[in-house]
């Protein structure tokens, strides 16, 4: 069996280290409900046991006074390469994109380096979980949801397979090479290639369906095929296809493809989404925002693009979450959310998209995303609004365990401060 390892098994692993405690005098921002000033938060084991202005602190719980400080759920990065990439320009440190066009059997969790310097750096700004997404070919593999704490990737894994990453063949005739400027291929050639590749993609899905049928009624000598086996949860609608599509044509293709293959869709990295707002809302397709630190898509685009995208989605009634994509970005997720607020999104909606909204999209809202009884004790303690740079994150807990906010940068800072 390929899915012996369950999420619950990972969670249990870290409980032993957690100490029961309660935070007192804090303003709790549960996300699922209105904020509660001067409240108590009780953590037993790896879970939130109770919270509220009058929550009782059970015996044996250590009491932490945190008057005037704020509690928010830990933030979720909905599209990252955390642990798969260390140094951008060094090929040997990249484990994001495998060779080959169809690799649904790949799972990111097994390649997440728990020792990556990027993990504590991301934590420092309030990220407690990350959906680690592969890339490469048309189907890059399965995205795993990881806690940003743990000795091993097993301990870190929240969900081994949250989505199947996919990128449909492209019809872009303009290609920008690294450092080599922009080149343009004849469109007729691009189109021909695109049609061929689309044919391959459809064929792969047909093969997967045929395999699904074979497996349901196996004949003697039936041999499991790992690549096709991995597609079954997608075909069954259990695991969403996470299709990355920025431009209008790519988004149209993604919507059509999901419709045709009757699979669950999560759209990621969208930019030119205006023509599809109604359709996406109607079909209740969740959207993972692109890296918002990008220049406007074209010369004539609004000076606010894509910072105004979250507000646009919110106004259309579309559920969305933030993603970092780039290895440098995770710690900037709250700041990107603040940019969204500066461009018309409500603060509540921004906070929700960073926490509960993301958990809902990934089907883990029963455990993560808000301050609610019974949920994982993943939260941060701040001296103010976590989206504003002026605010300091004071402490973080993951699965009820205090997690250090120290990282490569704070250590170098402390080290060299002494040399001044």
């Amino acid at each position, binding site marked *: 069996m390929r899915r012996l390892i369950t999420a619950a098994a990972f969670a249990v692993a870290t409980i032993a280290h957690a100490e029961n405690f309660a935070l007192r005098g804090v303003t709790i921002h549960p996300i699922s409900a209105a904020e509660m000033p001067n409240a108590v938060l009780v953590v037993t084991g790896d879970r939130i046991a109770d919270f509220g202005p009058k929550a009782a602190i059970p015996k044996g719980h250590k009491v932490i006074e945190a008057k005037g400080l704020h509690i928010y759920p830990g933030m979720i990065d909905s599209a990252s390469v955390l642990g798969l990439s260390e140094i951008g320009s060094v090929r040997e440190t990249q484990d994001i994109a495998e060779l080959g066009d169809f690799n649904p059997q790949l799972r990111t969790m097994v390649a997440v380096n728990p020792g990556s310097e990027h993990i504590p750096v991301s934590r420092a700004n309030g990220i407690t979980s990350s959906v680690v997404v592969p890339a490469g070919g048309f189907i890059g593999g399965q995205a795993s949801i990881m806690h940003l704490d743990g000795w091993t990737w097993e301990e870190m894994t929240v969900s081994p397979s949250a989505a199947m990453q996919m990128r449909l063949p492209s019809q*872009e*005739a303009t290609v920008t090479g690294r450092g*080599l400027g922009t080149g343009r291929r*004849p*469109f007729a050639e*691009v189109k021909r290639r695109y049609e061929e590749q689309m044919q391959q993609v459809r064929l792969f899905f047909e093969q997967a369906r045929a395999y699904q049928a074979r497996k349901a009624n196996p004949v003697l000598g039936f041999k499991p095929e790992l690549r096709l086996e991995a597609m079954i949860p997608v075909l069954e609608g259990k695991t969403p296809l996470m299709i990355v599509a920025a*431009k209008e044509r790519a988004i149209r293709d993604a919507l059509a493809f999901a419709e045709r293959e009757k699979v669950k869709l999560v759209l990621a990295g969208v930019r030119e989404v205006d023509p599809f707002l109604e359709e996406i809302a109607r079909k209740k397709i969740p959207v993972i925002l692109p890296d918002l630190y990008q220049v406007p898509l*074209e*010369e*004539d685009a609004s000076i606010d693009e894509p910072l105004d995208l979250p507000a646009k989605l919110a106004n259309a009634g579309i559920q969305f979450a933030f993603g970092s994509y780039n290895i440098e970005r995770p710690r900037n997720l709250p700041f990107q959310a603040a940019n969204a607020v500066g461009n018309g999104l409500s603060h509540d909606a921004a906070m929700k998209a960073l926490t509960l909204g993301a958990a809902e999209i990934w089907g883990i809202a029963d455990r993560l995303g808000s301050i609610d009884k019974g949920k994982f004790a993943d939260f941060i303690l701040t001296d103010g609004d976590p989206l504003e740079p002026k605010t300091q994150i004071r402490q973080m807990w993951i699965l009820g365990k205090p997690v250090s906010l120290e990282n490569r940068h704070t250590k170098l800072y402390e080290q060299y401060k002494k040399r001044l």
Partner: protein
Amino acid sequence: MLPSGNIVLRNGLIEAVGESVPIPAEAFVVEGAGLQVYPGLIDALSTWGLPTGPVRPAAAPAPGPTPATPAVLEQRIQTLDDGGPEERPSNTSWVRAADLLDPRLPAIAAARNAGYTTAIGFPGTNVFAGQGSAYNIAGTRARQMVIEDGVGQMITLPVRGFGGGFPGSLMGIISYVRQIYADADHYKASQALYAKDPRGLPRPPYDRALDGVIASPRLLLPAGRLVEIDRMIRFGQELKQPLVLYGGAESFRGAALLAAVKVPILINLRWPEAERDADPFVKDPLRVLETRDLAPSGPAALAKAGVKFAFYSGGVERPADLRKAIKKAVDAGLSKEVALKALTLYPAQIFGLDNRVGSLEAGKIANLTVIDGDLFDDRAKVKFTIIDGVKYEPAPEATPESNR
């Protein structure tokens, strides 16, 4: 314009033009009733009759000695002595179009069929591309065709990026051109001092790249966008060279700038248009669309501002299409009178040839374009051209394939 008149040609020159000029008894008479006679059309920046492509490959900077390295690698290593302007790369300033002219090339007949009699041809694609020559596009020997061998030095901007040696960028090319002109000044001064009395002075080295620059009576700089028109006007002024710009896609925006400094511009008749086989989904920016829309109105704007300009064949592949392209400028507000001048008298004036070609005047070279209607009417056909007094009927054009 004379509604009806006679032109007398003798020995390849125009002898007389007028309403009632007597026809000499010995003359061979060409009946022109119902035909329109124009001065021979001039292509102000041409490659007709010239081999296309680079004249000769740019000299690569010489690799410096690196004794400890294997020979193969040595070839690839650019040392501290890394070339730069003094190596004179991408420079064939001494080459003249006249010396490359090949009357057999098919473009010549095609251009004649389209009503042209004269071209100002420029060689090559180097930064210092070489010197333009004015020539008539009929004849069997280049030396008989040439009107003037050196009319100006053309600069092109072959931006090659990192791989091809200095200069690889637009600003590299500009600073390279600047250095060459400074070197030319230095060369002239050194030679003058040396010529006075060589004793006690180092001998100035022979430098044909500088000789070519010094020999050129004017400088042609490329400028399409308004930004480039502004930039190249300033650069030409800095170099203190008589300046002609070429390109002019955004001359509808740059007319005032050009008028202020009295710099003439050659207008490429290949108007900017959407790329062929472009991705239908790529939406061009408004800036680009406006340029495309308004480029043909540039000549009218130039005429209004009093800027001297001339048309050139540029990227128009078939000479037969040139009249269609000119008509676009007329449709966009250019008067037919000025349009005709931009094909005849103005290019002649810009290149200092107007005492020989560009108008129907006694004493000028007998170059005539004869059409069975109005030059700017699509339906009118070129009946014949007269070049150096010789009549050429439109001949069937050789297909490009047969000439490869």
